[in-house]
């Protein structure tokens, strides 16, 4: 297994995309951890050099347009059920804490 080297900057970028704040110690720890993770995934490269990943990209099943779902309304879950596993909730809403809400991303 070839060891991949990652820069601390990559991990910093990743943490900011994930909106997770890391201390200097955590940054060092995660940099090593991520290097191990990426290195183990790298093993796949040795597995089959013949696989053309660009072609694979579109190697999904194909369906005809007419087999798609008809636009009919089905049943939804009840409010109680959908919120069942939510650690925090309020007035029927999921409740989320944190300071990552800069705007609507849609």
């Amino acid at each position, binding site marked *: 297994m070839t060891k991949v080297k990652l820069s601390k900057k990559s991990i910093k970028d990743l943490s900011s995309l994930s909106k997770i704040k890391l201390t200097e110690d955590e940054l060092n720890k995660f940099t090593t951890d991520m290097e191990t993770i990426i290195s183990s995934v790298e093993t796949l490269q040795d597995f089959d050099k013949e696989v053309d990943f660009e072609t694979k990209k579109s190697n999904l099943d194909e369906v005809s347009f007419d087999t798609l779902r008809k636009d009919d309304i089905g049943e939804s879950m*009840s409010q109680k059920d959908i919120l069942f596993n939510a650690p925090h909730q309020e007035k029927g809403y999921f409740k989320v804490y944190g300071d*990552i809400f800069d*705007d609507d991303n849609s």
Partner: protein
Amino acid sequence: MDDKYDVIIGLEIHVQTKTNSKMFCSCAAEYFEKEPNTQACPVCAGLPGALPVPNKRAIEKCILLGLATKSTISKNIRFDRKHYFYPDLPKGYQISQYDNPICSNGFVNIKNADGEKVKVEIERIHQEEDVAKSLHVKNYTLIDCNKSGVPLIEIVTKPVIKTAFEAKEYASKIRQIVRYLDISDGDMEKGQMRCEPNISVQKKGMWECKDGVIKAKKDCSLNPKIEVKNIGSISAVEKAIEYEISRLKDAIENKEKITQQTRGWNAQKNITEFQRSKESAQDYRYCPDPDIPIIKITSNVLEKIKKELVELADEKVERYIEKYNLSEYDAQVITSSKEGALFFETLLAEVKKSIDEKKAAKVVANWITGPIFAYLNSTNKDFRDIDYIIKDLSELITKVEKKEFLNSKAKEILEKALNEEQKLKDLITQSNNEIISNKDKIKEFASKAIEDNPKAAKDYKSGKTNAIGFLTGQVMKMSKGNADPKLVQEILAKLLKNTK
């Protein structure tokens, strides 16, 4: 200052498709004023193992928009995952389309501020899903998944728009098209349509546009672009862009550093405010969604969808000008909504039964752009609310044209009928009687006017034909405005001729 800079604008428009169910599950799509999280399922909430199944109708409507904008339609529809971390997106990615949108290379025509035709090229139209609704409260956020998964169409122009006015016109055009084709209601206040302009200000001669991409010329550098969000109306599209252009020009003049960022439009203060620095496409880590197969679009499928294309406003305007001799202004005002055009065409079909078609078209157009629009604007109603009146209105218009009815009186009773004081048909019958009996009365009034004003009568006979105007005025007064001034003049002239 304007001579030194070029303004480059691209517009991203999101439109919620009007469907019964959501994009990838069968939960109801209409979420307005519904209890939170009552129209959600494992797919909407992004629970592990949930399987998205595309909505056929939503894709049909996306293709329909592509056909209406003369786009190329992809033969293989594929969906991709766009990853980002945000609580309004519980599964950690949005199902969207990356390098293979359903529609590409389309265009719409608009008019610029000088009235010249401008082609706005559309780079892509793709299908995706809306995200959940987030309500920010103090230090936490409440999430409602009813909106999560509603079909959303994204329409992206090439960076070819040059002014805030053109951007506004383009946005109205897109809204008009989606409304004509019943793809969406396009109500911006309800979030059914959202406009996000990308704006940059470049020094003249420093840049070029290659394949829809703005590039710096050799040894030049580009100023970064700014994306503006939170625009809540078509008029705010223009205002927000105008504000941003002037802000950017000032920044360049003052040699301030401009960074690529997303700003939000503040409609109260009429300014844009910093929101966040923008993530790049690479940060979204797009990848094909392995849960959704490739959907084959055959020519048969396309032919079937093509049948849903209706005559759009631009085509109607051309036809109205060509066939009916309407002015461009009238044609545009009438076709601005599908309902307006339908009202015009239905009313015209009735009126032209008794009046020559071209004349009927002009007359009907005048009634619509005049009293009808005045009524709709003052009451905030639309044509669908008043289509019951078409049959009687055509009778009224025909009577006015045949000089059986006074124009002023007709407008008066139409207003009464629209305000639902009385039925138009009844009002016509009542007023009609009045006018007919007036015909005899006019003679009476005219004789009296001549008798009471011998000087005017004498003046007329001696060649001062203006004097008839005064006498007409006297008769109109006596008839309390119920007489046709033309008829009054005719009768007066006849009587004066016969008096010594």
